[in-house]
């Protein structure tokens, strides 16, 4: 008997980018997430669905809510979870991303959840492992589960995403959340307006199908005001995209005076209170920030479920369309 028998080729599904999803995929995941809401209200908040499965979260970048929410989601589904904070350390020692992933893959994880500071890192990981890969953020590129939880939150509050008008406000250039949400919102029939200083809105971004305004007044027409974090670390002298945070807040800060009562206010966190969002807005009746965090748990449960037990590996070939782009034969 061979010590390491070769694995049969298998369809592997990954969630790398929102662009990999179609409307049906999104609908299915959001419905699955709704189903898990009931579990959250039970005394015993745990289902045995993924018992015996292993989920590894590998974070090369700091994270509070994404890492904790993936970890808890896997645990609520009874999977075994290994959480690694690899921030920089292996790179400092000269280990390549491929080597790190191959090392972890020796434990045969079913899912690897990866966050990495570089665009394209998650896609590279799929080449180095037999596990399903979920992108928990790669540089300024994509953060698909954030998009799904935001869609979930908006739909729960507004009933539908169709024709919903969402204003995304702030530093779009450096935001993977914005990129994923633009794709997800447009996919589901929403309308998107980007609002922010010209230095923080990417050139030619209109080609994605969004409108652009540099006037904060443009948020008045929106149903949802989605506030992005002002990335203070990029505001160092010399890299100044705006003259000062003070001026940014004056021109583009989301304050109670600029928000209508019927509007939802959302933020992916972490918030800089008093910079991009005023404290009274963050804590006010329009704010859905805590709902977003709660949605993150059930949506990530749904994503793990969809990959491992939903249309699942067994049903993947028969499924009308698999979850992710990166459907590939893995030898």
């Amino acid at each position: 008997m061979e010590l390491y028998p070769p694995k049969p080729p298998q369809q592997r599904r990954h969630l790398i980018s929102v662009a990999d999803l179609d409307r049906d995929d999104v609908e299915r995941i959001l419905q699955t997430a709704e189903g898990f809401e009931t579990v959250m209200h039970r005394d015993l908040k745990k289902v045995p669905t993924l018992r015996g499965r292993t989920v590894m979260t590998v974070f090369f970048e700091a994270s509070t809510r994404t890492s904790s929410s993936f970890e808890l989601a896997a645990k609520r589904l009874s999977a075994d979870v290994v959480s690694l904070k690899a921030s920089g350390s292996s790179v400092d020692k000269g280990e390549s991303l491929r080597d790190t992933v191959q090392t972890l893959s020796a434990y045969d994880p079913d899912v690897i959840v990866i966050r990495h500071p570089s665009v394209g890192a998650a896609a590279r990981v799929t080449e180095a492992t037999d596990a399903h890969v979920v992108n928990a953020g790669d540089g300024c590129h994509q953060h698909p589960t954030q998009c799904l939880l935001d869609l979930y939150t908006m739909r729960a509050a507004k009933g539908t995403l169709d024709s919903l008008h969402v204003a995304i406000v702030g530093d779009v250039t450096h935001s993977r959340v914005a990129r994923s949400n633009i794709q997800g919102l447009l996919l589901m029939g929403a309308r998107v307006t980007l609002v922010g200083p010209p230095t923080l809105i990417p050139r030619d971004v209109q080609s994605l199908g969004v409108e652009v305004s540099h006037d904060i007044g443009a948020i008045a027409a929106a149903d949802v005001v989605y506030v992005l974090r002002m990335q203070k670390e990029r505001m160092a002298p010399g890299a100044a995209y705006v003259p000062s945070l003070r001026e940014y807040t004056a021109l583009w800060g989301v304050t109670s005076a600029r928000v209508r009562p019927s509007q939802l206010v959302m933020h992916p966190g972490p918030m800089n209170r008093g910079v991009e969002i005023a404290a009274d807005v963050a804590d006010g009746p329009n704010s859905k920030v805590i709902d977003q965090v709660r949605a993150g748990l059930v949506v990530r449960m749904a994503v793990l479920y969809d990959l491992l037990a939903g249309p699942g590996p067994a049903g993947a070939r028969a499924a009308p369309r698999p979850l992710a782009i990166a459907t590939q034969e893995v030898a």
Partner: protein
Amino acid sequence: MAQRLFQADAEPADVIIAGGRLVDPTAGFHGEAADLRIQSGRIAEIGHDLHDPDAERIDATGLTVTPGLVDPHVHLRTPGDEHEEDIASGTRAAAAGGFVAILAMPNTSPIVDSASVLGGLVETARSEAAVATGFMCAITRGLEGRSLTEMGELAAAGAAAFSDDGRPVAEAGMLRRALQYSAVTGLRLALHEEDTSLSAGGQMHEGSVSAELGLRGWPAIAESTMIGRDLGIARYEGAGLHICHVSVAESVAEIRRARDLGTDVSAEVTPHHLCLTDEAVRGLDPTATKMNPPLGSEADRAALIDALADGTIDCIATDHAPHADHEKDAPFEEAPFGVIGLETAFAAVYTHLVEPGMLPLQTVIERMSSGPALAFGLPAPGLARGRTADLAVWDLGASRVIEPPYASRSRNCAFAGRSLRGVCRLTISGGRVAHRLIEAVA
């Protein structure tokens, strides 16, 4: 004048290339079938029914014979990074791509900024180079843009030209001085044009694709504004300039304007900028699609093809830039810039531009042979009696999928996985057979 090209000694060829279609616009051949008799490495005769009992005979019926190609922009990674390329492997790759002469860039470690480093390269080339190889030397010591290299001594030691390639000469005053001083050598400066205050952190061409992918955009003006500045300086000094790897429409406009004003400018474009666009970056594979300057938009590509057709750009150059697999096997933003191109240059241009009717074969041959040779004052290969045999024989009907093994020691090819038409069957450089994929007639 000092010798500028160096090559390993080998037996001169005695061969008859029979029945091939000759294409050499400067010699007036436009596809006529003829025999070439090469004796002791020289073209002894061009005609019909040629015979020589002492020469071997190659049946080139259905094949195309052109002047050998000249590449003014190659990174041989020697000295210092011989695991990526060395003079032997790089010149074999050149020969396999139909090149009979190449110019190597000086951004090696150590940098080629002294006669002693240059001397070592010349010596190695004399024993290892499969095709004629020239070495560009740095414009500024250490490529740091602060002080001039000893250009007089370097020229005497065999420098082919001067370049800080990989980096711009950032300060206008420094470039002006380099243009003034290099006049004593008669050698050209080849400039990598990039305003790094505009391109800083850039990963790919700035446009709709970079907006979508979240990769930091590299604006077209990072190249074009520097070209405009430097051509203005050259015009003022009455000096000549060569512009490396032009990649965007804005740069073409600057060069066209400078030509109209009578500036002595030559310019090159790479096969990957002629054949691919930033759409290719969507796959986020840095091995094949990350290079400096980055792949431009479709409009940029169209402008480059126009410029090549009307002579605004007079050279095709590969910017062959080998990198080790493990360096390129990284997330896009962490991988180094550069792709290899010697073995695929002609086939890529033939497949993407000649076959679809966008450029005539004659123009491509001119831009890949006499164009770069004349820009750098090198002898232009030609199919003419009495000339040293510097030629390539092509099978333009054959296609192949680009995949390893390559003659190059590296595998970061921009065209990997693509099927390209145009296979080089024979390369004769300096009268010596440098590459051969064809049998003699028994």
